Each structure stands twice: as C-alpha cells, then as structure tokens.
C-alpha cells in the first residue's frame, strides 16, 4: 500500500488533537476537516497555535493526545506514506545559504527519490527563479527564498501543500502572483492547500474554507461565506434604499419575512427572518405599499468582522465557555 493513496479521504482530518508543553496547553482538542481540492485557511492571531498544529501534522513534533490523518494515512504511524505527496513550508523557508537555489533543491530531491530530480527545473521556472537558480541562496531576498520554498514544495508533486504564513516577505506583486498560483493549483490541478495565516484578507481572498483558531482551540470552521455570516447563519441582511423611510418601516414592521428593520445612513437595514430569497418578498411588500425602492443590496459580512467577533468573545469568556467550539457545518 505504500505506493497508493486513498483519494476519497479528507486531505487532513484531526480528532481531539492536543499538544502540551509542560503545564501549558498549546493545542487543545482540535478537530479539523480539510476537504480535498480546496484552499483551506487556518486563521488565527499570533501565538494561537497554528504553527504547532502544522508541526504535528508533519511529524515534526508529537501530539500529546488525539488522532490525525494526512491524505488518508494516520500520522505519525504512516508518516512516510502520508508525506510523500505533501509539500510544506513551516515558518520561514530555510536553506543552506552557501549552496545555490538549484543545489538546495537537489538535496531535497535526493531525499525524496531519484525520479524527483526531473522536477527541479520545472519547479524553478514555475516560481520564476530559473535565471537565478545558480546563485547562492545567501544572496536571495526573503521574497526569493519564499519562492524557492514553494519550488521545494513542488518537488513532491504535492496533492497537499501546507504553507505557514506564506506571503511573509513578499511584495504586493509577489503576493498577487502567489494568490494566482494557489488558485491555479486548487482549481486546475486539484491540489489541496492548507494555509495558515494571521492575515484575514489573505485567507478571504485565497481560501474556500477556513478554521478560526485562538489559544489552541478551533472556534469555528467551514466555508468562508458561512463563516463570515456566523453561527446565526440565518442573519441575511439587506441594505434597502427607499424614498419614504417611515412608510417603509411601518410596512416591514408586520412582515413575516422580516426579523428586524431599522433606519440607517443608507436608508434601511433589514434583517430577514428566512432564506435570502425572501428579499424579493420584502421588495414586493414595499412596492405594494407605494414605497419606491431605489436600492436593494445584501450586506456582505466580512471574515474580519466574524474573526473579531469570535476572538473577542473569547477574551472575556471563562475557560469553560470558551472550550465550547462552535462549528459551521459545510
């Protein structure tokens, strides 16, 4: 079975994973489900336990409790089989500084297996380092090292890429190129990306799914859109522009489709009580009442709002309450 990989399992699945350093619990009973073929953001503030979780997944350190599987293989029991199609950058990418970029890749290729040598040149081309591949790494900028780190990941022809804060050190153009590369890998090459970051914007732009982690606990996980909407997923909110705010408030006050309506700078903020489709009923009610509707726009909840909401909720919460991680089912 060593040369075979189960393809319908999750890319990453963990149950109750815990890591303790003495009396301190860095990771506390984390359950993760990373679907294959997705870009999954592992989002949390600095010190939340993101890197520790990644290190356990890669067998760099042992878990104190719980079970993990990577590409269908239990880790650490079948670590070799699990990691053969995994590429990873943990923290900042490190290299032998006195060797060239190409030589550094040769070293990893030698460890991975003879067939990997042929992937070095294409990987260097893909990350845009082909022309400087024979320069010593100590002459590389941080951004170039990041790109060389990605090239090193590509040597595995990875089904799963685990990237820890991958855009650190990249300039805006580099970040944009990186995002495009990740999306290409997911959408056209069916690779899975597990990307840890404290940058909400980055995760929101790159990922389809995410987990929010804080103080070693996963607070929420699921598709980005549902995460942003929050656990009260029915909170479909509209901005409604009308010519007569008072009449509109009076009309919507008794509507079965409206949970809450209030005046706002844009006109009205309306929270629907049902599905997003009930926005049409709201519009019809207003028109029937003789209110001219000039704007009807769903409010887009940002991941940032949600992130601040759930992490600040933990700030004041007692330990018992914060332990109850909430999950948004995909």
């Amino acid at each position, binding site marked *: 079975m060593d040369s075979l*990989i189960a393809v319908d399992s999750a890319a990453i699945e963990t149950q109750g994973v815990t890591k303790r350093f003495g009396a301190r619990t860095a990771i506390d009973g984390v359950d993760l489900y990373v679907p294959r073929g997705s870009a999954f953001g592992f989002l949390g503030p600095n010190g939340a336990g993101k890197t520790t979780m990644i290190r356990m997944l890669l067998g760099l350190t042992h878990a104190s409790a719980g079970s993990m599987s990577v590409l269908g293989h239990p880790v650490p029991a079948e670590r070799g089989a699990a*990691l*053969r199609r995994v590429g990873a950058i943990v923290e900042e990418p490190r290299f032998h*500084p*006195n060797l060239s970029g190409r030589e550094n890749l040769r070293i990893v290729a030698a*460890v991975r297996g003879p*067939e990997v040598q042929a992937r070095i040149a294409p990987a260097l081309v893909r990350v845009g380092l082909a022309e400087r591949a024979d320069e010593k790494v100590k002459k590389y900028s941080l951004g170039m090292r990041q790109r060389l780190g990605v090239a090193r990941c590509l040597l595995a022809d990875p089904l799963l890429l685990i990237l820890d804060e991958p855009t650190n050190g990249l300039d805006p153009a580099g970040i944009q190129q990186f995002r495009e590369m990740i999306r290409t890998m997911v959408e056209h090459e069916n690779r899975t990306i597990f990307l840890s970051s404290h940058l909400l914007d980055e995760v929101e732009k790159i990922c389809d799914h995410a987990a929010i982690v804080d103080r070693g606990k996963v607070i929420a996980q699921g598709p980005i859109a549902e995460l942003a909407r929050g656990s009260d997923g029915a909170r479909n909110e509209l901005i409604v522009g009308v010519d007569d705010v008072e009449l509109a408030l009076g009309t919507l006050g008794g509507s079965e489709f409206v949970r809450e309506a209030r005046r706002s700078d844009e006109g009205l903020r309306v929270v629907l009580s049902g599905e997003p489709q009930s926005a049409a009923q709201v519009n019809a009610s207003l028109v029937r009442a003789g209110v001219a509707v000039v704007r009807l726009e769903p409010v887009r909840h940002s991941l940032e709002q949600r992130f601040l909401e759930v992490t600040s909720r933990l700030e004041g919460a007692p330990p018992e309450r914060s332990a109850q991680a909430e999950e948004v089912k995909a």
Partner: protein
Amino acid sequence: MSAISPTAPAPGGRGADGSPLGIAAQMFGADFLKLRKKRGTLIWALVLAGAPVLIYFVVSVIQHSSDPHKYGPAGGTSNFADGLRVIALFFGPLAALLIGVEAGTGDASAGVFRDLVVTGRARVALFASRVPAALAMCCAVMGTSYGVLLLGTFAFAGNLPTPTGALILNGLGFTLLSTGVLCVVAVGFASLTTSKPASIIALIAWQIVASPLLVSISSLGSARRGLLSQAIAHFSPVHTGNGGHGDTVALSQGTALLVLIAWLALFLALGAWRTAKMDA
C-alpha cells in the same frame, strides 16, 4: 470503499531505479555536496591536516641546510614516522572532528532539518547518510595530507632510507582508521548535541586534554583500555607510546578492536536516536 490511485514511489521505499541503494547513493551525494560547499570548514580541515606536515618539513629542511652535521635530511623513514604521528594522532584527528561535527550539525544549524523530515524519509536514514559523506570528505582531506607527507619523505630523504611499500600502506591505513573513527564519533556526538560550537569544544577538549590526561593517570589501571585514543594508537605502524604497539596502555588486538567498535556503536546509536526523536 476508498478509491486509490498509483502515485510516486514512497520515501523509504524503492526509487525509480528500484534500488534502495540508488536512493542511499543519492542521499550520500547530497550530504557530500553540503560538506564540499562548506568552504570554511573544508579549508580549516585542510590547514589542520596539511599545514603541520608542511611546517615540519620546511623547518627540517632549513635546519638541515643550515647545519647538515647536526641535523639530518628532512625526509626518510624516521621523519616519515614523525610526520605520520603528526597527521594521524595529533592534527589529523582535529580535522576529522571538524568534518564530523559539520556533517552532524549542518542540517540543524541551517534550519533545513525539518524540511528534510517533511519529505517523509525516515529520520534514521537522514542520519545514516551523513556518516559515509563525512567519511568520504575525511578520507579526501587526510589523503591529501598523507600525499604531502609522502612527497616530503621522498623528496628530502637525501641519503636516508625511505619507507617500504608495506609501511606506506600501513601508514595510510592507520591515518584513515584513526581519523575515520574520530570523524564518525564526531558525527554521532554532534547529531546528539545538535550544537556545532558545543560539539567542537567538547570533542577537541576530550581529544587534546582529557584523553591524554586519563592515559597518564596510572592508578586508573586497566580502565584506560577503554579509551578510544589507546585503541586507535594500538594499530599504529610506528611507535607512539610505551605499550606493546603504538599504545601507552598495553592492549590485545581483540580488545583494541572491541573498544573501537564499542565507541563507534555508542555514538552512532546516540546520534541516530537523537535524530529520530528530536523536535524538528
């Protein structure tokens, strides 16, 4: 039921050529490349292994040319023996320690050990490939140094007898044995500590200070047979001590061999254990 698909060969399994030996050879090549490109360490190793012999010959040649009646020619069998002691027992081991420590700590100190671990390759295999690479580098450095010794021995022999072929071969074998064993011990010890400065200081202190000191304490009696330096010196083709062979404490051939094996096994096991267990 899980659908499965064939993928690239697994690390730890067979390579594209179907040979685990092929993978081992590639890993050896990679580790040798790291050492070869570590210019600072390489230069220092060459200086330590070669410069003392060069200096020895230069001084002897100057002395001989300034007063030929008092000082004999710089080459010949007698000076070969002195030079052999210098490279095999004093400065060569220091060069071997530098190479071994570099091989043992190179990945960790560059921060790339974790990147090798995440390939899925067995950690013990990562450790194991360091040993032949370090030995190969050590042999190359010591071979160069031994070449300088031979060159001086024959070039400056004058009317003195020169070493026989057997002595030359024995000398080479002894030089490689002496430095090779210390190099492997250094790989194991450095992999255990993962600290380059700590390993260099501890091993050089042991080799230069502690080991000769312990040999000189006669009250330790036969316990001194366990010292690596004595076991190595036992195989010297030239006189280096007061024992029956090159050793100061008399050892049988079997005991000397067992002591060498025990030291190698101990430090290889410790290095492998630490490499397998440490957080990367």
